[in-house]
């Protein structure tokens, strides 16, 4: 064997190790779309329903916020469903292009790594809403999304590790400066997702 063959063999081994342990078809385009949905959702919540909590605790029955809170919740759930749907469809299309199955062992790895922090965060957010701790909803959603991304980076594109850290930091800052909660949420779920999506799209999808 020549040197070139040895190098080729090593690179083949590395590629097989990566392909069989990581889901690398995560779509950057879907990150951009998710960011756009988040911006639209936040705009509707703020402009139409006047949602911009400036303290942690709200008495949900006495304030105007309580009436509109259900509407904001609907907006949030719509954003989540649309974002997840887009990620699944576009990442599936990416995997299909590479001749891989959408539901493979690596997909299962990614889904479990993300689902645990996301479900825990989602349930905590429901509790916060029920207890009237509205000001903490945005920070907590940022932190748990960040943890999910950080965790997922072990079984997917490694760059999303840093994306997770950014979201966690934004979440922690907004848990102290509650009045900037919605702004930080727009920054994290909206702009950071879009910037990351663009970066990943140009790096991996072209």
């Amino acid at each position, binding site marked *: *064997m020549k040197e070139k063959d*040895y*190098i080729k063999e*090593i690179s*083949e081994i*590395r590629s*097989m190790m990566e*392909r*069989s342990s990581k889901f690398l078809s995560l779509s950057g385009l879907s990150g951009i779309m998710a960011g756009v949905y988040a911006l639209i959702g936040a705009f509707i919540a703020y402009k139409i329903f006047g949602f911009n909590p400036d303290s942690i605790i709200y008495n949900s029955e006495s304030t105007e916020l309580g009436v509109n809170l259900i509407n904001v919740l609907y907006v949030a759930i719509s954003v989540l469903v649309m974002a997840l749907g887009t990620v699944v469809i576009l990442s599936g299309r990416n995997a299909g292009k590479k*001749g891989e199955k959408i539901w493979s062992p690596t997909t299962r790895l990614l889904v479990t790594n993300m689902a645990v922090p996301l479900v825990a965060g989602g349930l905590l957010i429901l509790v916060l809403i029920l207890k009237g701790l509205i000001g903490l909803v945005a920070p907590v959603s940022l932190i748990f999304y960040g943890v999910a991304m950080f965790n997922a980076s072990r079984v997917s594109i490694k760059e999303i590790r840093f994306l997770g850290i950014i979201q966690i930091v934004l979440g922690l800052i907004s848990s102290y400066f509650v009045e900037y909660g919605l702004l930080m949420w727009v920054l994290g779920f909206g702009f950071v997702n879009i910037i990351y999506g663009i970066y990943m799209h140009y790096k991996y999808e072209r």
Partner: protein
Amino acid sequence: MKISIDGLHKAFESRIRLGIMSALSVNDALDFNSLKEYLGVTDGNLATHIKALEKEEFIGVEKSFIGKKPNTKYFMTKEGRRAFKSHLEKLEKFIKSQKSE
């Protein structure tokens, strides 16, 4: 042990066998279909190579049932891990020695 002229184990001469070992080195266990998907080979072809690696005792088989469906999973044995590691080290050494020449 079957060793070829350059000191590399014969079991790793085939791209497919090397692929199976690479995939199993980073997974606790993989089933037949996953391996087939990663390698892009036919059932018969994959089965032959798996048997060869089993005979070397580089990989082991774990049979179980999911409901009523039989589920066969393959994993790397200690012996296999040792051989795979030494194969990688040899490749590295060859590249280094040829670069310094």
